[in-house]
């Protein structure tokens, strides 16, 4: 079997010793320059390459071989390409070279055609020993030389773009300026003739001068782009294609370099980064816009060959991204570009194949909507007036907001104007109250023509696209990236995240293995005081969401009437076709949040999805829940507040049992809920007192111990620990007594259950132990209760004297407590230690009680 062959090859290659490799290298050297042994040489080279790739430790090659390999890479041409490429890859495997080899073997020879073939090696060598720096100037010379062939220019360009990506800071303004002006030329000046067929040599053929076609087959009337169709393409047309394909990277990195590097001054004069970009990029921005607009035009044509439709979409995706960047570089393109993008959106909004482009469009809107306000003539008049007047900023903003409220402008606009105004304020540090209000009036009257409200696009992406295409991982990847990149904007300036979080969770529900790390980052942004509880339910029910999505995907589309029978469905698929259960599945896969809660019939939902318990997707989704829950609780404990904790408590009590019945999943979730119950009550201690009704209702029923003993005992511990006047002034002796009564009753009951059922009991001795500790603690705070506590402990002792299953531990625990309670003053100190006990001071400070006790104990025993 072929896969076996791979394994065998691997074993062989991995076993190769240093000697084997040395031998192999020598063999290669023997045949390297013998044309008649080319096949043998190629064989040896690929053996060497394979060993280098699969070995798990680095290897070095003899210098002589390295020299030969590099020389042959330098002499690469079309005929020996195959062999030279493998040489190139072998060298790359052992790169970067050390200083000696670098200076002897890899020095660029200016003007030599060897250099251009070595570009990939220079890139692999990187900045080590000044490699990039010395090659850069050669590459620039090549690029600027008009007499050189297009192929050399193309290779120099590719090298320069690679440098701009990998070593951005190595490019100076001069390099950027020269290269940018070359790109402008290549973009707009490629020939529009088709190349002759290079594979037929026909001296009698008439020289055909066919003009390239448009993608729909009509002859081109305009300049060449990669969407033009010809039989064959010329070198300069290839250069054009390369230019566009690498344009975004070039602009992006150079823009970053020009705006970040404040030390660069042009001609000694200080320029703003924007002006510097304008000067250095020259007319590249305008040529780019021109090229992009032509592409937008070409993408409206129907392709003659079906596969070209794909490249049209990819092209739109790129074009919108490039235009977005251009608008960030030169703001005066915004109005023009904005209009085109809006038009594009209208055209594409219902084209399913174009959905990836929509997300790019939305990104554009987000980036440039606010700036539109400042465009054209208003901008200058605003800045002039602002610099004349000088008023303090703060009251102005309040006035402006008041103005918005009075004029009843949508919330979205409010926040946008608000932020743009605050930008103005911070930029100029002065504001002119009357003038700005005048200006605003002007904007409101006229800017609707320019300002586009992206709300529609938002909705489109986060409702329709998301809920219908969650199975498309590429599209979901785009949306996740979009959310991550704009987390602040989405979170603070729109209500998208808090409205559509159930829909957003579908991405994780369907791709739980792929996007978990991203959701850990997104989750806190989804949470707000109004949504957090609903999100809590959503996380707990994530496996159900996955199950429901699986069901919906597998269900036949649009079957007739839903069945109204009320029998229990045999499968989730059947349930989906029943009027009784369909709403449950629809609810769990809803688009919008805002219910604040979950549904009443959650257990029915768990029931109908029971057949998907072992579905692999549901399993992986259920494994993400503990991770998300931890993030959720961290956020709540950090920012939740007392009021939220009060709302959360009953939900935790309810949900600690109401979980999708998948054993590993429920065990994990219960453990996390139990841990966080303690953390929550520790942070908001007064809840134990203020939420007496909820807690007592829960504790009084021993049925609640079933299947969630840890959760129950943790709550008992919290009551024992935090039901004290120390934590809330509203804690009364009466309340302590009420809690005591409950704990006492439950102690008798649980102790009895254990004795009677022994090994089959679902309650363990730990619960009784926690209960008696808690009730002893309560007794010390209300000393009337001490005799009752002692009586209770005595009874428990008696019950368990003969219990051989660990009863002796409980008995000794009871005895300890009885002994302590017999000395009420000590008991209240020992069972209610002040909070400092946690700081560790108690064990270090010489005046602390434990140290004093230990010291006196030592004295007493040594005396005796």
């Amino acid at each position, binding site marked *: 079997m*072929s896969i076996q062959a791979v394994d065998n090859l691997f074993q062989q290659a991995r076993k190769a010793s240093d000697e084997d490799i040395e031998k192999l290298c020598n063999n290669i050297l023997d045949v390297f320059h013998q044309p008649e042994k080319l096949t043998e040489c190629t064989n040896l080279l*690929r053996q060497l390459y*394979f060993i280098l790739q699969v070995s798990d430790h680095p290897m070095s090659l003899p210098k002589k071989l390295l020299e030969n390999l590099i020389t042959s890479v330098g002499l690469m041409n079309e005929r020996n390409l195959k062999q030279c490429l493998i040489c190139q890859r072998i060298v790359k495997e052992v790169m970067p070279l050390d200083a000696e080899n670098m200076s002897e073997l890899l020095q660029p020879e200016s003007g030599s055609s060897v250099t251009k073939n070595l570009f990939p090696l220079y890139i692999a060598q990187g900045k080590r020993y000044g490699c990039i720096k010395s090659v850069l100037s050669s590459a620039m010379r090549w690029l600027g030389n008009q007499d050189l062939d297009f192929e050399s220019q193309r290779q120099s360009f590719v090298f320069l773009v*690679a440098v701009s990506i*990998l070593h951005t800071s190595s490019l100076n303004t001069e390099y950027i300026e020269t290269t940018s002006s070359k790109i402008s030329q290549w973009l707009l000046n490629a020939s529009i003739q088709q190349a002759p067929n290079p594979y037929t040599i026909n001296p009698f053929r008439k020289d055909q001068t066919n003009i390239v076609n448009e993608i729909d087959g009509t002859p081109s009337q305009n300049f060449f782009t990669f969407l033009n169709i010809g039989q064959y*393409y010329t070198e300069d047309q290839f250069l054009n294609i*390369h230019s566009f394909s690498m344009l975004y990277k070039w602009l992006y990195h150079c823009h970053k370099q020009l705006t970040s590097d404040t030390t660069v001054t042009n001609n000694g004069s200080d320029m703003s980064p924007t002006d510097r970009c304008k000067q250095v990029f020259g007319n590249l921005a305008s040529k780019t816009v021109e090229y992009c607009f032509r592409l937008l035009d070409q993408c409206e044509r129907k392709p003659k060959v079906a596969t070209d439709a794909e490249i049209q979409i990819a092209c739109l995706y790129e074009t919108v991204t490039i235009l977005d960047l251009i608008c960030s570089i030169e703001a005066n393109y915004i109005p023009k570009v904005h209009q085109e993008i809006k038009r594009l959106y209208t055209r594409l909004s219902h084209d399913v194949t174009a959905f990836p482009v929509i997300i790019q469009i939305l990104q554009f809107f987000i980036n440039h909507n606010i700036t539109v306000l400042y465009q054209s003539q208003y901008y200058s008049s605003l800045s002039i007036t602002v610099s004349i007047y000088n008023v303090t900023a703060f009251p102005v903003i309040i006035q402006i907001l008041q103005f918005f409220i009075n004029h009843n402008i949508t919330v979205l606009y409010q926040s946008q104007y608000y932020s743009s105004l605050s930008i103005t304020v911070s930029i100029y540090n002065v504001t002119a109250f009357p003038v700005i209000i005048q200006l605003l009036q002007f904007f409101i009257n006229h800017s609707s023509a320019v300002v586009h409200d992206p709300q529609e696009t938002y909705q489109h992406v986060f409702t329709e696209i998301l809920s219908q295409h969650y199975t498309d991982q590429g599209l979901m990847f785009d949306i996740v990236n979009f959310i991550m990149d704009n987390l602040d904007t989405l979170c603070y300036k729109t209500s998208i995240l808090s409205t559509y979080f159930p829909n957003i969770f579908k991405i994780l529900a369907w791709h739980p293995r792929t996007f978990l790390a991203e959701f850990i980052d997104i989750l806190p942004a989804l949470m707000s005081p109004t949504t957090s509880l609903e999100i809590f339910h959503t996380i707990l029910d994530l496996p159900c969401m996955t199950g429901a999505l699986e069901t919906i995907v597998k269900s036949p589309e649009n079957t007739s009437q839903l069945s109204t029978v009320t029998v229990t469905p045999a499968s989730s698929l059947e349930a989906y076709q029943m009027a009784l259960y369909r709403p449950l599945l629809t609810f769990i896969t809803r688009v919008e949040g805002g219910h604040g809660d979950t549904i009443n019939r959650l257990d029915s939902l768990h029931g109908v999805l029971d057949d998907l318990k072992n579905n692999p*997707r549901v399993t992986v989704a259920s494994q993400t829940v503990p991770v998300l829950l931890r993030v959720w609780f961290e956020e709540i404990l950090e920012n939740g507040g007392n009021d939220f904790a009060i709302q959360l408590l009953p939900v935790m009590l309810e949900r600690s049992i109401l979980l999708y019945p998948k054993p590993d999943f429920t065990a994990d979730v219960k453990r996390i809920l139990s841990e966080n119950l303690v953390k929550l009550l520790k942070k908001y201690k007064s809840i134990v007192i203020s939420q007496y009704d909820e807690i007592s209702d829960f504790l009084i029923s021993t049925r609640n111990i079933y299947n969630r003993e840890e959760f129950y005992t943790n709550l008992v511990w919290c009551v024992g620990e935090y039901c004290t006047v120390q934590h809330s002034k509203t804690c009364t002796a009466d309340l302590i007594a009420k809690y005591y009564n409950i704990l006492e009753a439950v102690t008798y009951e649980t102790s009895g259950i254990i004795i009677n059922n022994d090994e089959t009991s679902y309650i363990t001795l730990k619960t009784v132990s926690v209960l008696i500790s808690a009730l002893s603690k309560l007794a010390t705070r209300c000393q009337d209760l001490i005799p009752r506590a002692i009586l209770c402990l005595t009874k428990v002792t008696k019950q368990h004297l003969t219990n051989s299953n660990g009863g002796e531990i409980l008995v000794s625990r009871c005895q300890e407590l009885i002994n302590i309670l017999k000395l009420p003053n000590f008991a209240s100190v020992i069972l209610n230690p002040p909070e400092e006990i946690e700081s560790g001071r108690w064990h270090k400070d010489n005046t602390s009680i434990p140290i004093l006790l230990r010291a006196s104990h030592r004295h007493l025993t040594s005396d005796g």
Partner: protein
Amino acid sequence: MVYAFIINTILPGIPRLLYYDIFGQDGVADDSLDITADVLTSIRKSQIQQVFERVHSEYQFRRSFSGRSVEDDVLKLINDDTLPEFDTGFFRLRAGEVFQKDRYVIWLAAGYTAFSFVCEKYENRLVAESILKHLIRYLQEHVRVLTQPSETGLRSERVGVVVNTFLPQGNLLFLNNRLIRQLEKEVDNQIKAS
């Protein structure tokens, strides 16, 4: 710019690396000479390994419910000589996770073999997917990468020609159907040469 192109075997058994090509640098201490070339090579190898292991895990997850078996894919290829349907996926690798920079991975898999690109964050994923498909198509044609994965490791000079033409120095190009045909012919000629 595509940082790396990786071919590895997938189910069944341990994933094995068949071929990789790295076009960029990860920026691990470029300037610092404290890190030796050997260390850099080891880092490179372990990064590649982390990527294809993650691809393997994503692919296994897909297969666990797709109901399609590896043998189905291969049979289809051998009998009809048409490319099987590929599982396609994307995942992000955040800065510091595997690489120094934010990158993402696009992978396609069928039969015994998975193919992936490690891309810079801003790389156009639609073009990446389309180029990756072209690469697979021509690699199948010239080295039977899907049906005889062991050939890929051995006929690396052919793989090199295909990759060099369709992914020149790691650059994703916008190619219409005629451009693809032209490059296809170039590959044929170069492989036939000498």
